Structures are given as structure tokens and as C-alpha cells.
């Protein structure tokens, strides 16, 4: 089964449970990756959702996930109902020593926030990293300066992404794209792109119900008329409707850019994943080249 807990590079594997090593859980592997980058050798991180061929919106919990959560002292989860099962697992095994970072609450977002894919917003991960550093330092004050140093290097490692966003905006701001799901919408708007897809279509696909024929027709026409310069295809949430949209893009020679719910593995960390997405969008808009798989 592909969705068993996966240890991440950067964590201190092999000394699970050793003194001074904090057990942590990231509900999605991109959050687990950031925890590992801050925690370094003093944290062992388990990612719950890391399979790029599974739709996290319909994820089902197994006992190994429940066990990982019950043993964790630090949990990072997205919130906004995206990983509702985490809240259920946490209340099933209450622990006073466990700290939970709910990114929705960390960012002060209301429950009515429509798009739950918060990690695509460039400002999210720096805030998450700071919260992780704060919690780890509280748990293990003797390593506080170590965690602070790792946070500083995490922040400086974001500079290439920030630069890539600025460069992209300067070149392509105002260009129109389509999507099959709102997964990368925060990044698209940070890049200055306009997502012309009817929101209902994106939300229906995300929520697993059928988009209306009217919205499907609208999107198909946008693509066939070349009203959009690229299609951001969520390779992780698919249906016969999204596949039909994808083949429409192929026949109309509209470049496709694969976007993901969770961080593609192996070979990526959060920063390099975002840069790869920006590069794929750049290639789509400047050279009309599709990136159907991020590798």
C-alpha cells in the first residue's frame, strides 16, 4: 500500500525513539519536508500523504497513520477540511505534550476559505517554518540555537523561488490560463496569471461531484479557442471530465503543466518543487512545451 508513513530525507532515520529525537508528523509531505528542514537531526518526521497518484481529498486513514499521530509530539496539518482525519485522530489519542500546527489557523483563515491548497501560496511556508522552529525550541530548549540556525538557512533558501516569481511576473503577468482544480491557484495569482476556469468547475472536481455540462462546455471552448495559454492539470485528482479537458488541450495544442496536491518524490524538497512548477509554466508560456510529469 502506497500511503504508509514514509520517512523523509533530512530526518535522523535509524534512531527512532532515541533520546532527544522528536517524533513529528506532517499530514502532507510538503509540510513534513519543511519540518525536516527545520528539525534536522533532532527530529524524525513521518509524512502521511505522499503518494502522487492518490487524491488527498478522498484519503482514507489506516491504523499505521493513527499510530504515527498518537506517538507524535509535533503535528503539522493543513486544515480547511483538507486533512480532517488528522483532527479526528488527534482527538482519538489526546496528549498534553503534543503540539499541533494547523496551517489554516496559523494563517488566521476562516473556515469559509474556498481554496484549501495553502502551501502553493508563497507566504505560507515561511510562516509554517517559523512556527515549527518556535515549537521545537520550546520542546528542546537545549537545541534552540540549532533550530534557529536551520530556520535562517531555510529562509535564505527561499530566495531563488522569490526571484523566479518576480522574473515570471515581469514576463507573463496578465496571461490567461485554465486549470482542472484549484490546486495551484495561489501560485498562479502570485505569478500574476489569470485563471479563467469557472470556479464552480474547479470546486466540483475538487469535491468529487460532476461539473455541470455548461461549465464543461465553457472550459472546452476556452481551450479550443486558445483563450488560455496553458492548462494546469491536477495529475492527482482526475475524472473522465478532467481527462476529456486534458485531451481537448492536447488536440488544440495548448500546453499542459502538471500540478500536484503533494510534493512529488523523490528528488524534490519544497523549494525545488515550487521552482520546478514555475519553470514548467515558463516553458509552457514561452515555448509552448508541456510538462506532463514533474521529475
Amino acid at each position: 500500500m502506497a500511503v504508509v508513513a514514509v520517512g523523509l530525507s533530512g530526518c535522523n532515520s535509524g534512531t527512532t525513539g532515541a533520546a532527544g529525537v522528536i517524533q513529528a508528523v506532517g499530514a502532507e509531505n510538503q509540510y513534513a519536508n519543511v519540518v525536516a528542514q527545520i528539525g534536522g537531526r533532532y527530529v524524525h518526521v513521518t509524512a502521511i500523504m505522499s503518494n502522487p497518484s492518490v487524491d488527498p481529498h478522498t484519503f482514507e486513514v489506516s491504523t499505521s497513520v493513527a499510530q504515527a499521530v498518537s506517538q507524535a509530539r509535533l503535528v503539522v496539518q493543513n486544515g480547511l477540511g483538507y486533512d480532517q482525519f488528522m483532527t479526528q485522530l488527534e482527538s482519538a489519542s489526546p496528549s498534553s505534550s503534543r503540539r499541533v500546527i494547523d496551517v489554516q489557523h496559523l494563517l488566521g483563515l476562516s473556515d469559509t476559505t474556498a481554496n484549501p491548497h495553502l502551501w502553493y501560496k508563497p507566504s505560507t511556508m515561511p510562516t509554517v517554518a517559523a512556527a515549527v522552529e518556535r515549537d521545537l525550541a520550546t520542546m528542546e530548549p537545549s537545541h534552540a540555537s540549532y533550530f534557529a540556525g536551520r530556520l535562517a538557512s531555510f529562509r535564505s533558501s527561499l530566495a531563488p523561488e522569490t526571484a523566479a516569481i518576480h522574473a515570471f511576473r515581469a514576463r507573463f503577468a496578465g496571461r490567461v490560463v485554465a486549470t482542472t482544480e484549484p490546486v495551484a491557484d495561489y501560485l498562479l495569482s502570485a505569478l500574476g496569471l489569470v485563471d479563467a476556469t469557472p470556479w464552480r468547475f474547479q470546486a466540483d472536481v475538487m469535491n468529487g461531484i460532476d461539473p455541470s455540462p455548461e461549465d464543461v462546455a465553457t472550459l472546452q471552448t476556452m481551450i479550443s479557442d486558445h483563450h488560455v495559454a496553458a492548462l494546469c492539470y491536477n495529475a492527482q485528482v482526475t475524472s473522465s471530465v478532467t481527462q476529456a479537458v486534458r485531451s481537448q488541450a492536447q488536440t488544440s495544442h495548448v500546453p499542459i503543466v502538471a500540478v500536484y496536491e503533494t510534493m512529488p518524490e523523490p528528488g524534490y524538497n519544497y523549494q525545488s518543487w515550487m521552482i520546478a512548477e514555475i519553470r514548467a509554466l515558463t516553458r509552457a508560456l514561452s515555448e509552448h512545451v508541456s510538462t506532463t510529469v514533474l521529475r
Partner: protein
Amino acid sequence: MTWLFEPGWWANGTVRTALVVGGIVAVTSAVVGIFTVMRGQSFAGHALTDVATAGGAGAFLAGVGPLLGFVGGGVLGAGAMDAIGVQRVKGRDIATGVVLGAAMGLAALFLFLSARTSSATGATQLVLFGSIFTVSPSTLPEVSWLSGAVLVTMALVARPLLLSSLSVELAAARGIRLRAVGLIFMVALAVAVGMSAIVIGAILSTALLIGPPASALRVARRVGSAVALAAGLGVLATWVGVLLAYDSYYWSASHRSLPVSFFVVVVIVAEYALASVLRRRTRRVPTAVVEPEGWT
């Protein structure tokens, strides 16, 4: 007519596929459904929808087309029910109930596993309640073939089937092989149920199977006219359901459309209510041909 047919209706490929596939499926369901109602096998028909649910969920998990899963699951279920004694009237409900429970358990397993291992979304909605607007035009040949096979089979076994429905003893005396006829009918029933599952979902396919025939049998005087009327009512319910679902996009400012399955079932229930009113008006004396023993 623009108030009835909202913009884009005539040009929309999704709608056209839904109407053609839905129409074929409705006719097939109605023909098989007449015999299902007359034989008092509605519960067996419902059990087959549950087996089709398991088949559809399995197809989703295996990544093959849902139609193959619905029909394949239904046919396997029909075989299982025959093997454990659905033919004997006494044990019929029990055999049906056991298969039904097992099938739903399998459906739960398959839906769980597909949620955990696949990127495909909306499996539960598609399998249980149908997604006619997501049916690909490439499904049309399969649907036509299956429908043709079921209709030809029904034409061939109609007479022995009718006779055995009316009187088991008389049919046996005429040399009709009751079990063979019963099994052939169950397989045709399974295919019909599997086909209607792609229109209004596996769980709701009973509605399309039983509803229009039940309405037709309330007002028709002969089996032939009942079959024709049931087919008409089934097609009407499906087409009006598709139309209302399409139109529902324009009913609210937010353009939140409503599902086809809901509207199809609403029309089916309305048809049945209307048929009941007509029946009471006419105070028709039930004929033995239309109403077999035990059917009220």
C-alpha cells in the same frame, strides 16, 4: 421554448451523449422491468443493483470502464443468486439478502481501496448515484450492443417467461425448462441493471427498472402495450431528468446545478402517482394476463 431549453442545450455534446445513452438504457430497463414486476422479483432486481455497485467500485479500483464493472458484477451476482437458490420461492428472499449484503461489503472495500490508491475522484458519486454527464461518447457502441442483446433475449424468452410467471405448474406441464428460463432472465436483468447504473447510479437503478413498468402495469391492459408504455415512460423520465439537470444551472445566480439522478427519480415518482390516479378513475378490472397471482 427558450424557457424550457436553456442556452447551449442543442449544441452541447455532453447532453447529446446523455440523451442517446440514457434513452437506450431506459428502453432496455423498461422491457426487462415489466417481467421483473410481473414475476415479483423486484427485490432480486434491487439485490442485483447492489452487486452492480460492487462491480462498478471494483472497475474504478482496477481502472477499467464503469460499464464493464456494473454489468460484469451484475451477471456474476445473478449466477451466485441462481446457485444458492433464488429460483425456489421459499428461500428466494434469503438468498437474495445474503448476496446483497456481501455485495455491499465488497463495494465498501473497493471504494475504500480506490480512495487510497488512485487519483480518480468522485468514485462514490459515480458508482452509487450515477454520472451520466461524464459518460464518454465512446461508451455508445457498448451500450447499443448490450441493449440489443438484452432485447433480443427478452423477445426469445418472453412467452415461456410469461407462462412461468403466471403458473409454474402450467409452464412445467408444457415442457418449459423453468430454471433455464429463470437464469436467462436473471442475466438479462443483471445486464439491464448494470446499464442503468451508468445513467442514474447503481443504487438508483432499481428506480429506472421498476418505476416505469410499475406505472405502465397500472394502466395498460395487455403485456405488449405495457412494455411500450413502460419504455416511453422510462425514456421520458430520463430525458426530462437530463433537461431539468441542465436547466437547473440557470435557476440560481450561483449557477449551482443539481444532479440528473434526482430529477429522473422525481419524474418516475410523478409518473407512478399519475398512473395510480388514472387507474382509480377507470376502475379497470384487472386482467389475468397483466396481473399474475400474488401481485396486487
